[in-house]
């Protein structure tokens, strides 16, 4: 806020400037600011960024040496990273943030009936990963990304097969292409049981929430982002009145004219399969849901046995229920889509699909909000994406090798800032460096059908620290946090300490050649030169580089701890520090 004196001075200046007096000063023109040049990261730093972004681990020493010797080697290494199976895991994590299916803290189906031999971990993994495995399959097999909504198959493992009665090829182990057994149209993730178990249709919602999921995740067009007012004069218990309102009421039509036809594609799916209904069904010899449970009664066309494994999530006979309710016919923004497969095909052809995919991929890698990515950047990427026949790995490559992604600091809209380490990546990096996997056994005795086996604490929200580290839990925490928080620091400290304690004990119990990190010293080594050489090697291995300042600083820490303890403890403290280095936490 300018002071009155300043305002007066400004007014005087402008007055003089505009009075046309030839003797007065000309208008005050601010010089055009110098365009800020985007400074690019070194080839090594770009390699670190690409490696962590794709595989969740840092580059090896050999890979760093390659780009030091020849920066042009970066491209070939990025290609290799994109072909690495770990990139498939990254693709799944990206889409888990989109579809919110990794919800181990909620909606967990029980280990009962045909699934009683599986642990809660296996049930959860099967449920959460079913739609994500399809996306991985499409991307890692170089299929057009559009296939995520057009695939005429699904992906299943033996647990999914048991839960949903899917026929598998016994000659193939793990996840494989299969088909839903219940006559549902196949349209990639749109046909996913788990996706629609996560996103339920309650009460008289009539699948509109699900329709919003389709629009929001695949088209970046959220109906729920719009403020709305509901006309209190509409009797919501009168389905005919509601049907009229969503067609005719000015407060309703704006959204419902597009939302309802989209929703009408999904009538074949059950509104929800509550885990309590499944548990209750198995306890009841007739396999009928427990009437005392507060769950929706069985819809017309459903059977009590639908809630027994194998679950029945889709009933073709219900597909046309929208007719009875006098709702709009299935469609996609004005285009009729008689079947779910037609919907998938139509989505794939919509320009918004490609654009939205570009925003999602760019946002994932750069940690820039999708809405903040400049339109010209999106357009260029989208044009190339379409020209490549929707090759998601080519899109990823283009992003990873782009200058906005390589910015030392963001100066233009869309430039990537310092990138925050994701929880899965921190766990993977620590395992890669130390051999330590942070697992625990959370379930005690008496857990019945909800016993959890060993869990990886970096990828669990229910028992572990994924959400506390800044990830999402898919249920309550729906947005990741791309900066440091007190919880994140506590997790860093704890995992760094555990991994350090593990690797120091393990390394000193092995010959040097078999150790993870401490190859140059023994438990009683104290001479400065040897210790400093080991410290330099640790910095190279863990952070990818070492400076005299790093080594001197770390040596000071080592000596300070050793003075009160012993070399073994000193190495543990130093490693605990290194595994929290800001160059690890941010990349």
């Amino acid at each position, binding site marked *: 806020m300018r002071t009155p004196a300043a305002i007066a001075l400004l007014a005087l200046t402008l007055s003089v400037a505009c009075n046309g007096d030839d003797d007065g000063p000309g208008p005050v023109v601010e010089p055009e600011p110098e365009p800020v040049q985007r400074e690019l990261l070194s080839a090594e730093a770009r390699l670190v960024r690409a490696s962590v972004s794709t595989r969740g681990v840092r580059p090896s020493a050999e890979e760093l040496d390659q780009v030091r010797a020849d920066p042009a080697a970066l491209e070939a290494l990025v290609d290799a990273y994109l072909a690495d199976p770990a990139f498939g895991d990254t693709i799944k994590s990206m889409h888990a943030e989109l579809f919110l299916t990794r919800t181990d803290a909620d909606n967990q189906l029980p280990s009962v009936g045909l699934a009683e031999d599986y642990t809660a971990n296996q049930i959860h993994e099967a449920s959460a990963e079913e739609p994500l495995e399809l996306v991985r399959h499409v991307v890692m097999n170089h299929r057009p990304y559009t296939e995520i909504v057009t695939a005429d198959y699904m992906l299943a493992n033996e647990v999914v097969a048991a839960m949903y009665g899917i026929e598998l090829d016994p000659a193939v182990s793990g996840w494989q292409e299969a088909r839903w057994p219940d006559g549902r149209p196949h349209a990639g993730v749109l046909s996913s049981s788990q996706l629609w178990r996560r996103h339920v249709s309650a009460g008289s919602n009539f699948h509109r929430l699900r329709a919003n999921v389709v629009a929001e995740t695949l088209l970046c067009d959220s109906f729920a982002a719009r403020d709305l007012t509901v006309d209190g004069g509409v009797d919501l218990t009168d389905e005919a009145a509601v049907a009229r309102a969503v067609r005719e009421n000015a407060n309703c039509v704006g959204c419902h004219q597009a939302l309802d036809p989209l929703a009408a594609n999904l009538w074949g799916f059950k509104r929800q399969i509550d885990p309590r209904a499944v548990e209750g069904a198995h306890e009841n010899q007739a396999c009928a849901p427990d009437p005392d449970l*507060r769950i929706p009664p069985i819809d017309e066309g459903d059977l009590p046995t639908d809630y027994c494994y194998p679950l029945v999530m889709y009933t073709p006979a219900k597909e046309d229920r929208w007719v009875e309710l006098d709702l709009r016919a299935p469609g996609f923004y004005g285009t009729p889509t008689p079947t779910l497969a037609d919907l998938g095909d139509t989505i794939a052809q919509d320009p918004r699909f490609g654009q939205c995919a570009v925003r999602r991929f760019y946002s994932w890698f750069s940690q820039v909000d999708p809405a903040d990515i400049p339109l010209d950047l999106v357009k260029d990427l989208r044009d190339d994406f379409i020209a490549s026949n929707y090759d998601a790995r080519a899109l990823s490559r283009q992003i990873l090798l782009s200058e906005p992604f390589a910015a030392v600091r963001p100066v233009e809209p869309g430039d990537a800032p310092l990138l925050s380490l994701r929880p899965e990546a921190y766990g993977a990096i620590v395992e890669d460096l130390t051999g330590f996997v942070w697992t625990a056994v959370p379930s005690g005795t008496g857990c019945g059908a909800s016993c959890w086996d060993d869990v990886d604490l970096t990828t669990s929200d229910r028992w572990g620290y994924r959400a506390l580290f800044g990830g999402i839990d898919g249920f309550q925490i729906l*947005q990741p946090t791309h900066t440091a928080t*007190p919880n994140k*620091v506590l997790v860093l400290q*704890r995992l760094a300490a555990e991994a350090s304690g593990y690797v120091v004990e393990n390394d000193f119990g092995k010959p040097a050649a078999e150790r993870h990190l401490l190859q140059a010293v023994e438990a009683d080594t104290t001479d400065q030169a040897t210790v400093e050489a080991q410290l330099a090697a640790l910095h190279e291995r863990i952070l990818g580089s070492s400076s005299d300042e790093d080594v001197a600083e770390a040596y000071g820490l080592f000596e300070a701890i050793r003075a009160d303890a012993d070399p073994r403890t000193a190495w543990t403290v130093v490693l605990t520090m290194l595994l929290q280095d800001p160059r690890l936490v941010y990349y």
Partner: protein
Amino acid sequence: MARRPALSRRHLLAGLGAGIAGSALGPLSVRALNPAYAQGTPPPRNLIVVCANGGWDTTFVFDPKLDVPEIEGPEANDTEGAEDTATYGDSLLVGVNHVKRPSVRTFFDNWGTRCAVLNGISTGSVAHDPSRMRILTGSGAPGRADISVIAGSIHGASRPLGSLDMSGFSMAGPLGATAGRIGVSSQVKALTNPSAAFTAPSELGRSYPLFDPSTDDRKAIQAVLEARVERMRALRGGVEANDKKLDDLVESALRAERLITDGSATIDQLELGRSPGFLGSLPLAVDFLSRGVCSSVFVDTSARWDTHTGNSAQHGLFQDLFVGLDALATLLDEAGRWDDTVVVVLSEMTRTPKVNTEFGKDHWPYTSALVFGAGVKGGHTFGSTNDLLEAEPMDFATGEAASSGRILEYDGFAASVLELLDVDPGPWFGDLDTFTAWRA
């Protein structure tokens, strides 16, 4: 009216103790640095947000509509003839039922003259997540901080945490460095007390923790890390986006250390592997505030309010809620915290005026809030809905219905809560009209 300090983050962090290595980890004071805490400024206020996640039916308690035929409230199945209303103070009108939810009357008998109800808040959505985001953050855009976090970042600036989330629903947005969570299974306990960890797998051959740095070890480590942050800043800083991330790292480390030293006494009361639940959260929340661990706590009622079938379940839900609120009010009273704590009880939406074909109710984009504590004008119901359960325009200064007034939208509600806590909502909401009638 308190604002986040105008000084740079780096000056603030310097004031927080020049890093752990150089600090005595004693009480931190922002007062000396923050002009907002000049003499005569009201003392900081604590906040407890209680969220009835899923959509409560306001006609059961806050907005009774017993004689309105267009609305099917709890009286629709009142076979005992127990549904009634009760008035407290000047105008606080609530629905009561001595058979199905007696705790409501008990609560208001004890505290009614110190409570205010605000009806007719427009939430702008009928979907859970968008509505919750709106009512808590005052915005329909993701990535914003909610009222608990904002208030905590101001009033808890000198505490280990500004805000603590015991529910999982709190949203920290850009203020993540000031906020903490306990985790769905109270996992924070194993982070601040490594000996309380889950069982290690048998193949590890050892128990956790495999290494537990001492306080001096942590200080020494942090001194090195802070130096490295500054070297990273020299290379990658110079723009807000990157500087903020580095500042957040340093601030988070300071707060994490203080949480270990100052928060463990309360955190150790959590049971690893279990959520404390609603009733268990309440004494912990008061303890966190009383010990100065944070200045805002967010709790959830741990109940399923989303009664699309069998809306009569709301009786039991409100019964449990008000058992808890009575306990909370008592705890605050015993701890001497009524004069410095505001409790805001809310839900992201209410339910439709009439029941559906499954005797449940669906979503309705209005809601109510119950507030009590410091600075609250008790004994009043403010705002209103009409006989179609739509929000009515009101005079924000009086809380009375007024055709010339305005409907209180979710952004105005959030801003008004911040004002109730003596936090200037301007930086977050701009020049927005706020509801002031509930201020004592």
